[in-house]
């Protein structure tokens, strides 16, 4: 349906009539192919697969028999492109254009293309349905649920699954105070990092003085490895919009902004289209659903720096200034964008709102722990078997996420640590894997919930080197305004460089702790004040590794180049000469059938000998 032709929905009854007519036109037994068109699957070729399906259906004249749905991200991007056949829910993974005719033929005959099914690495069994795949089985998909099932560019798809009914309820059956009270009682806390109670924020913004107020959606998402906000905005943009409209109504705002990271073109275009469609139906704009409430939303492209996701920097950037943080001793709910009361929430926070309004605070606050309610979407990456987007109820132990949903550590290696909360989150060791996903418990452990990146590390990871990696990232991302952050992170890098190259001293450990204090207490914004978490937690849980680097001049994980030494174990060496030939520095010498020798003065520590030896005769220590 083209946007121009639709009738404005003059009231809630009109919305319900529209919903009924959409549902009636749909046949529940209709064969549908849901092809993931999220950024992850597009990167592995989903657009060619989609084109191949379109061509095949046209060629066979089946366009009416089989519907194609270009859905948002299903979350299991690693196995993409993903295709699900409905109504059977057959789950195909790693689909290529050449598989398309077979899938279409099998679908028509009620058969299955065996070789495209997912194989459970634990049991070796082929799995037929999406829901039975361990990666999906352990999840509770409340917010992310419709992401993979509807076409995000069709507002009718969203309306068919109950979309905008929460808005209708909020506008006609609830007062603004009741809406705020519902959100407060739900226990929803901000998903963007700080975990601030959303209802309390809304209430302060409602109470703040000023005729003009704003609501803003933070879709800047700068954490390396995190992409749940992108996927939500791409896949279910209307849920985010619906949340924003409800929030704006409750607060008394008539203008909203979605601040999207510049590198997210698909999120921008899907959100833009969603706004146009909602405008056409009168779900946005003047007199929404006949309630008299006006609200419009515009999209702004981000300033391109990690720090632009910080609330005051984001608002400066929205105002057209340099995206730099400023002190927030006067809160942004009172003086935010253009010094007016502004309510900023994260994408996922907004997307939770329709759910709470529809199903009620009492339902919502049953899920989770005492002070962390609802679900959280994580982006599980690193050394786990199954990477992807994972939505779990708050309170679930970290172990369940990593070992059940994530399928354990890659290549059968041992788990070492998981970093939650993005680049300035802390490393959580094996002994704390029982920790539940909970804002306060993660903070107590020296990490944080953050926006939801979860990076798993295995036994081969050097924790000192890992801390240095994140410090280097933050050093580049520090805006440079305040001294503790600009100079302090740089100096932490200097000290860590010293330690990882074998020049560290024991006093350096205290120096790192002192720097961490200066950063935590002295920095202007949370980038600086949380930056030391990776260093502090590695010192807390993996101190012996620091001592090994400093005292023994050894890197136990064998990652720190400068501390590695290669040598030949003469008993194992067969004198095959492969290392002698392969060493690019000509540091290995030897004769056939005699043990080779490495000249350490010449060795550049590239590790080629170690990699090429078939007899495990090269020792790395």
């Amino acid at each position: 349906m083209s946007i121009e032709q639709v009738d404005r929905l003059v009231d809630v009854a009109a919305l319900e009539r529209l919903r009924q007519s959409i549902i009636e036109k749909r046949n529940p037994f209709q064969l549908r192919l849901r092809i993931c068109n999220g950024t992850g699957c597009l990167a592995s070729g989903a657009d060619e697969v989609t084109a191949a399906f379109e061509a095949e259906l046209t060629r066979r004249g089946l366009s009416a028999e089989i519907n194609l749905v270009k859905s948002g991200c299903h979350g299991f991007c690693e196995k993409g492109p993903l295709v699900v056949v409905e109504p059977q829910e057959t789950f195909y993974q790693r689909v290529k254009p050449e598989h398309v005719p077979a899938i279409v033929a099998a679908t028509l005959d009620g058969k299955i293309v065996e070789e495209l099914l997912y194989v459970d690495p634990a049991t070796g069994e082929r799995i037929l349905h999406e829901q039975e795949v361990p990666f999906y089985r352990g999840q509770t998909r409340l917010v992310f649920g419709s992401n993979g099932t509807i076409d995000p560019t069709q507002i009718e798809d969203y309306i068919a699954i109950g979309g905008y009914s929460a808005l209708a309820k909020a506008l006609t059956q609830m007062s603004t105070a009741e809406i705020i009270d519902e959100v407060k009682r739900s226990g929803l806390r901000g998903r963007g990092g700080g975990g601030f109670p959303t209802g309390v924020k809304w209430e302060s913004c409602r109470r703040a003085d000023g005729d003009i107020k704003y609501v803003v959606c933070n879709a800047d998402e700068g954490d390396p490895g995190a992409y749940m906000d992108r996927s939500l905005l791409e896949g279910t943009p209307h849920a985010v919009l619906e949340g924003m409209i409800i929030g704006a109504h409750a607060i008394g705002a008539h203008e909203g902004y979605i601040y999207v990271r510049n590198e997210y073109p698909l999120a921008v275009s899907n959100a833009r289209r969603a706004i146009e469609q909602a405008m056409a139906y009168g779900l946005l704009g003047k007199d929404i659903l006949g309630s008299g409430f006006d609200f419009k939303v515009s999209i702004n492209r981000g300033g391109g720096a990690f720090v632009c996701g910080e609330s005051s920097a984001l608002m400066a950037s929205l105002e057209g200034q340099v995206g730099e943080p400023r002190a927030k001793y006067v809160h942004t709910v009172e003086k935010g964008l253009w010094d007016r009361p502004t309510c900023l929430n994260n994408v996922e926070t907004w997307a939770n709102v329709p759910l709470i309004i529809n199903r009620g605070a009492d339902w919502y606050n049953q899920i989770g722990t005492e002070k962390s309610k609802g679900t959280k979407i994580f982006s599980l990456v690193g050394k786990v078997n199954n990477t992807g987007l994972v939505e779990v109820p708050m309170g679930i132990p970290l172990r369940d996420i990593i070992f059940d949903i994530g399928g354990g550590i890659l290549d059968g290696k041992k788990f070492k640590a998981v970093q939650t909360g993005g680049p300035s989150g802390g490393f959580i060791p094996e002994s704390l894997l029982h920790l539940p996903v909970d804002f306060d418990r993660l903070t107590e452990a020296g990490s944080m919930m953050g926006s939801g990146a979860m990076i798993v590390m295995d036994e081969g990871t050097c924790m000192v080197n890992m801390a240095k990696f994140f410090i280097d990232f933050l050093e580049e991302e520090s805006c440079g305004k305040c001294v503790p952050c600009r100079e302090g992170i740089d100096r932490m890098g200097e000290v860590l460089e010293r330690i990882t190259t074998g020049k560290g001293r024991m006093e350096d450990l205290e120096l790192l702790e002192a720097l961490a204090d200066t950063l935590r207490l002295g920095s202007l914004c949370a980038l600086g004040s949380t930056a030391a978490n990776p260093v502090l937690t590695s010192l807390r849980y993996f101190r012996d590794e620091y001592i090994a680097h400093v005292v023994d001049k050894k890197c136990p994980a064998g990652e720190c180049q400068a501390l590695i030494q290669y040598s030949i174990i003469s008993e194992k060496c067969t004198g095959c000469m492969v290392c002698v030939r392969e060493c690019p520095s000509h540091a290995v010498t030897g004769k056939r059938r005699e043990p080779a020798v490495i000249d350490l003065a010449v060795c550049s520590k590239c590790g080629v000998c170690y990699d090429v030896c078939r007899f495990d005769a090269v020792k790395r220590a």
Partner: protein
Amino acid sequence: MKSVTVWVDGNTSVEVIEPKDSRAVHLTVDGKLIRTTPGKSLLEAVWNRPGIGNIPALCYHPIVQSYGACRLCTVEVEEQGRTRFVASCLYPAKEGLVVRTDTDRVRQLRKGVLELLLARCPEVKVIQDLAIEYGIEKPRFALGVQDCILCGLCVRTCRENIGRSAISLVNRGIFREVAAPFYAYELGDGCVGCGDCVYVCPTGALKLGPDGKPVLPKVHIPRPAAEGLLR
């Protein structure tokens, strides 16, 4: 009507009878009650009161808006039973606030910041003096060769008072520096040669050149590891 004893400076106190419609704000700084007007920051409230509070401040200047970059002005405030560290150049003076400007924790934090500043700018007199006051002998880091602490006073006075933006702060993190438009070190026509920037510079990093325009400090990144990050 109630009378209160307020301190004008470290040695002088006066009795004030507050009029009914008084807008005055009262706060306690290091145990002394002071009286100020609303809208002032803590630092401004004690600015001209010798003997009250001990607050070093390098990025503050009364002629421009507070910026909160050097963090040396950090103090402890107690509000509703909670103690926290705030930058006094930005934190608004509020009725009943208890402020402590010179506690061990505050001094410890300033010492940490000063060690970073001294490592960056070992030759700058104001920083050397403050470092001595806070008990720093030698920074535990590789020494830099900078004079500029990036307080932004020059940039701010040019924009706020002169109405020009002949210079600005460019780049992020440790690569941040003061530059003229198009990333030039020489000032173009935007500069009217007023010299205000040189006047407000707390470290002497900005000097007036022969053409009456400031010569911008060159930022050098001393560590090879940091140079690797340059793009």
